[in-house]
């Protein structure tokens, strides 16, 4: 062997643009799908994306990209990714970032930025997106050096997913995206080890459970996020403790489970609100005492002690003091609790009696479509593959009250932020993430108009979302409040000049049809679910139909308003 042949061949370091390095990072982090909209400052990234194996879903408004990424994260548990250019592209993401922050959805948003030399000079399409988004992200970065990209990307994905998930923003100046750099060293993602459970707190919680006479299991969205569904169900079943759910907690315990009393809160079930009011112990799992759930805090669960189990220590004691707090792994905590079933037979019987007495009725008089019955029927027809992607308004509350949910991550709803326009892009993302699921976008005539352009996205990619558009030609929930609390002073809620939604959908190339009468509901559901591509059912409903029950503003949850069916 001569000296020349003994040389070890050293490959020259591969040179990539910063944008190329970012795309490589996305690939290494396992990202398969991103949602975005190109523009000037983000063009280097789009240049690099074109040669990658990553599927880019071109939405028609950046807000939809953010909602879609949020829904991808909620559906899969992976980090959803959205991309926008600087300036208006970036600002259009903000509602989606806030949505993901409020509802703890894992998400990374990448924004283009003007070149570093002109940052701070009011350059074309320049905004301080880092500063503008600080309150609505878990963390954020401006990348000033392309060599930082691997570290920033790995950190961002870790931060978005770890503990209580949330959105992370990465702002990428155009010159950094364009600069050539070595293919960087990608640090191995940390696998954070869950902190040891506080054995003393767990024991204290167990003592509380055994001593309680009227315990209630309070199920929040954190159960699904923590992957603690199995542990929750096992705990519920070995203890027999009655359970209620927050809007985001629906499905962790199947809504058809005998122990599930219903959703609590403003539009919650009377049996659920009564149980919480009369409880002497709340076992709060992954919930944050949102005001829509608690009503007036000073009248909420007045006789209850609280065990609060949550991944986020900052939620403990924020709104309601906890006698026992356990922070950390929710599933592991629940597995150690309820070793003996508490003797609460009479309490269980009482809550079951209330559940039966206040069960919803679906035999509304008349020939009009009765939305609660329709929603119940479509969720039952779709079965365990049912995923609801809800917008915001009356339809959202009816869906929460009446749809059947048998698993977490199957109820996509803008719970904390209440962002109209969430439903359609969320549904598209959910269907792309889980093509085998039956994804139904439940929307209203107000909400659909907030992101109706995404019909084009559904059509372009052949995403078979089923859109159930409940049209009362009003901003229904606002109308309801004006009727009940503003002396029927109906102000700016009339949408009776809506476009013909069937024609609109068809103009986008989406199959559509109308349901006007109750007798059309059954065949309509069948047709909608059987459609092979995206399909919209435009359902006419009574404009004066309200969501019941209702806790009036400023009242405690026990002061619910009810109604009887309006006789035709």
């Amino acid at each position: 062997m001569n000296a020349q042949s003994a040389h070890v061949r050293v490959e020259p370091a591969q040179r990539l643009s910063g944008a190329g390095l970012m795309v490589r990072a996305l690939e290494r982090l396992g990202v398969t799908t991103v949602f975005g909209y190109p523009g000037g400052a983000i063009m280097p990234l789009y240049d690099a994306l074109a040669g990658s194996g990553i599927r880019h879903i071109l939405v028609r408004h950046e807000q939809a990209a953010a909602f879609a990424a949020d829904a991808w994260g909620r559906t899969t548990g992976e980090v959803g990714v959205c991309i926008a250019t600087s300036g208006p592209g970036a600002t259009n993401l903000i509602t989606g970032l806030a949505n993901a922050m409020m509802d703890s959805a894992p998400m990374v948003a990448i924004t283009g930025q003007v070149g570093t030399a002109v940052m701070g000079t009011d350059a074309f399409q320049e905004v301080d997106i880092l500063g503008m988004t600080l309150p609505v992200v878990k963390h954020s970065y401006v990348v000033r050096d392309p060599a930082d990209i691997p570290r920033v990307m790995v950190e961002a994905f870790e931060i978005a997913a770890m503990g209580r998930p949330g959105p992370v923003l990465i702002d990428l100046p155009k010159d950094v995206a364009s600069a050539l750099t070595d293919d960087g060293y990608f640090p191995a993602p940390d696998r954070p080890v869950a902190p040891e459970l506080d054995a003393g707190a767990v024991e204290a919680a167990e003592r509380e459970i055994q001593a309680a006479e009227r315990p209630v299991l309070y199920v929040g969205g954190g159960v699904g996020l923590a992957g603690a569904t199995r542990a929750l169900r096992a705990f519920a079943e070995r203890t027999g403790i009655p359970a209620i759910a927050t809007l985001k907690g629906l499905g962790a315990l199947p809504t058809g489970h005998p122990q599930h009393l219903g959703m609590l809160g403003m539009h919650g079930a009377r049996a659920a609100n009564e149980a919480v009011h009369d409880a002497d112990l709340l076992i709060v799992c992954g919930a944050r005492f949102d005001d829509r759930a608690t009503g007036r805090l000073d009248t909420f669960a007045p006789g209850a002690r609280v065990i609060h189990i949550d991944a986020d220590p900052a939620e403990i004691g924020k709104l309601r003091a906890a006698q026992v707090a356990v922070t950390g792994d929710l599933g592991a905590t629940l597995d150690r609790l309820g070793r003996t079933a508490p003797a609460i037979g009479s309490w269980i019987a009482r809550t079951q009696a209330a559940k039966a007495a206040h069960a919803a009725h679906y035999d509304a008089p008349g020939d009009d479509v009765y939305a609660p019955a329709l929603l119940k029927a479509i969720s039952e027809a779709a079965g365990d593959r049912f995923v609801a992607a809800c917008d915001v308004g009356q339809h959202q509350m009816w869906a929460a009250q009446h749809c059947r949910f048998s698993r977490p991550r199957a109820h996509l709803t803008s719970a904390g932020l209440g962002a109209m326009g969430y439903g359609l892009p969320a549904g598209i993302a959910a269907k792309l993430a889980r093509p085998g699921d039956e994804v139904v976008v439940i929307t209203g005539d107000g909400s659909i108009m907030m992101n109706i352009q995404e019909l084009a996205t559904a059509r372009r990619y052949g995403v078979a979302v089923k859109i159930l558009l409940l049209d009362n030609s009003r901003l229904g929930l606002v109308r309801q409040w004006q009727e009940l609390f503003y002396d029927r002073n109906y102000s700016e809620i009339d949408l009776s000049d809506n476009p013909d939604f069937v024609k609109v959908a068809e103009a986008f190339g989406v199959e559509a049809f109308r349901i006007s009468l109750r007798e059309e509901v059954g065949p309509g559901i069948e047709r909608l679910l059987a459609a092979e591509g995206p399909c919209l059912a435009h359902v006419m409903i009574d404009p004066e139909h309200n969501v019941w029950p209702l806790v009036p503003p400023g009242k405690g949850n026990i002061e619910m308003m009810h109604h009887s069916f309006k006789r035709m």
Partner: protein
Amino acid sequence: MIRTINCEIDRAEGSLQRLIGLVERRGFHIDVLEMEAEGNGGRRVALGVRARDSGRCFDVLGRQIDRLIGVRRIAAGREMAV
């Protein structure tokens, strides 16, 4: 009553803004702010804060600050009468 909070935070873009923005958004006035660079790539920040109303819990604020990415250490300091 003014309570003091002593933090050490990363010297990273937006880190100070993130900290003081959180304190104000969560319902506290900032009456005192002192900052100096540390040699380890960090910043030492001392805040004197006062609750806007009686519903604001200082301990919860501390935990909210503690969960910010880039906050290395936080300690509650002395109380001072206004």
